[in-house]
């Protein structure tokens, strides 16, 4: 096993029986969260780091579930011995959010009232619901104050919400490729994804599990659209160009041609639709759309961030157009005006929004340098 890997890890479950009142007003009587941990919690419980996942993420952020696993967890580039979130020093907690489809209570788990999967009747969630449930997980694990709460994209929104809702419970907030709220363009892409799913006959109004159907095509289409927005024009040009997978563009024949990018997208779509739940996808895109950090602060992000007590690291990537550097600058400017400690860098990277998952040297060095500071409690 690679010495920079956390190695073989196993998910754990935490059961919560105290009812959780959600932002929508409904109450979850009890629920389960699936999570993984990497590294050792120290005696003072001061080295715990919470990793919040993005739209299609889950608890398996680092390491392998078995020796046969081909791919490690989704953020293995950043979590492990000697990596930016160094498991030689930090105790890392990564969970599957409420409403997820990888083991935590959500649309695919049984509604105790009906004995059937929740499906589309699962309560709609806001980012703050995730934060409150994560705080319960922190209580469960005996963590009074996180050394850092860290997230990319939708995960960054959770990290920022943590800073406002539980200012005493985190020392650092790391917000990567995120935004204080989505733009109209961003919401529009999410709407296409939802429409693709909901217009698939297999969706059956969201009750596909009960009907034994699946909106596989719709979910694949949703993922294809999303995937394009996570890449940059340049990244797609580098990866695929106009390369053909089959056929020819020669004149004088009616034979069609298939571009590499077509088959790649279809592969990504079908892989995803085989492993992700459509109702969860809809629920999570809505949580993204509805998130608005400063709404209840009179739309003033400066007033919002005055609630925070932690230090912030904000990172963006030059070719990310889904969560562009401009969105990160807005966060930074609000933090400066709110007189909060902030560090910001725009990382030069070709990979678009997906860059936050990639081993880009400057990104890893800077992230690691900041986490060193978190470790030394500066």
């Amino acid at each position: 096993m690679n010495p920079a890997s956390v190695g073989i890890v196993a998910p754990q479950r935490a059961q919560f029986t105290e009812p959780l009142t959600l932002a929508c007003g409904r109450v979850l009587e009890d629920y389960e969260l699936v999570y993984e941990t990497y590294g050792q919690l120290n005696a003072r419980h001061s080295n715990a780091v919470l990793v919040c996942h993005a739209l299609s993420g889950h608890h398996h952020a680092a390491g392998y579930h078995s020796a046969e696993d081909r791919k490690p967890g989704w953020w293995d580039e950043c979590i492990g011995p000697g990596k930016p979130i160094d498991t030689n020093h930090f105790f890392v907690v990564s969970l599957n959010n409420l409403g997820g489809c990888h083991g935590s209570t959500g649309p695919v788990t049984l509604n105790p009232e009906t004995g059937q999967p929740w499906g589309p009747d699962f309560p709609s969630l806001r980012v703050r619901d995730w934060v409150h449930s994560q705080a319960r997980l922190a209580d469960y694990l005996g963590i009074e104050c996180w050394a850092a709460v860290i997230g990319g994209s939708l995960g960054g929104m959770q990290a920022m919400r943590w800073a406002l809702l539980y200012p005493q419970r985190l020392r650092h907030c790391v917000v990567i490729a995120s935004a204080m709220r989505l733009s109209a363009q961003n919401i529009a892409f999410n709407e296409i994804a939802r429409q693709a799913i909901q217009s698939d006959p297999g969706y059956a109004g969201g009750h596909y599990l009960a009907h034994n159907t699946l909106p596989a095509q719709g979910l694949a289409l949703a993922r294809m659209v999303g995937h394009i927005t996570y890449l940059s024009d340049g990244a797609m040009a580098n990866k695929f160009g106009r390369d053909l997978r089959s056929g020819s563009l020669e004149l004088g024949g009616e034979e069609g041609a298939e571009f590499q990018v077509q088959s790649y997208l279809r592969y990504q779509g079908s892989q995803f639709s085989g492993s992700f739940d459509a109702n969860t996808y809809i629920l999570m895109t809505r949580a993204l759309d509805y998130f608005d950090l400063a709404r209840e602060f009179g739309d003033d992000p400066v007033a919002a961030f005055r609630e925070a007590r932690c230090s912030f690291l904000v990172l963006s990537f030059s070719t990310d157009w889904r969560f562009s550097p401009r969105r990160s600058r807005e966060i930074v400017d609000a933090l400066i005006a709110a007189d909060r400690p902030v560090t910001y860098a725009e990382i030069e990277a070709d990979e678009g929004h997906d860059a936050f998952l990639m081993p880009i040297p400057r990104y890893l060095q800077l992230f690691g340098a900041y986490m060193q500071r978190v470790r030394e409690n500066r």
Partner: protein
Amino acid sequence: MRLDLTHIQRWIEPGSKVLDLGCGNGEFLQLLQQEREVRGLGLEIDPDKITAAVARGLNIVEQDMDAGMDNFPDQSFDTVVMAHALQAVHYPDRVLDEMLRIGRQGIVTFPNFAHWSCRLYLGTRGRMPVSRFMPYTWYDTPNIHFCTVQDFEALCEERGIRILARDMVGNTERKPLLASAWPNLFAVTAIYLISH
């Protein structure tokens, strides 16, 4: 530590808020945090220097001061420092105005282009001076706005900027008698404390 930086410290109140424009690898800001317990923020655009400064535990924002500093509220810092960057910005006059909008006081250091050695170099060789302090060729240099002690003071006068104190550093570590008496001729580095 560059000589001009150690001189500046005494003008900075302990526990105050300091913005360091072009903070480089953060050496000076770290010194201020250690010695003066300031709350510091550095602006820098060089990726490697940013990483080095963050590794020192400093708050650094990647921002080009030439592109404006509108995101900093009026009078939001006690002191705004710009060490050896005045000659490298596109609009030194605007940056000076911004410094004093953002900060109660400003501290500026720059290499004095009228130092006798520069004059001698230019006068005798007829070529742009290249020295230990100014190691760049004219065509490949970050220093696009060299000025002299007299130039700077004239600009301050024109802009209504008050010079509260100045310090001249000669080319020896000893007491800079010549540099103090005839700064435009003998100061290698000029250091100013300014305000509105």
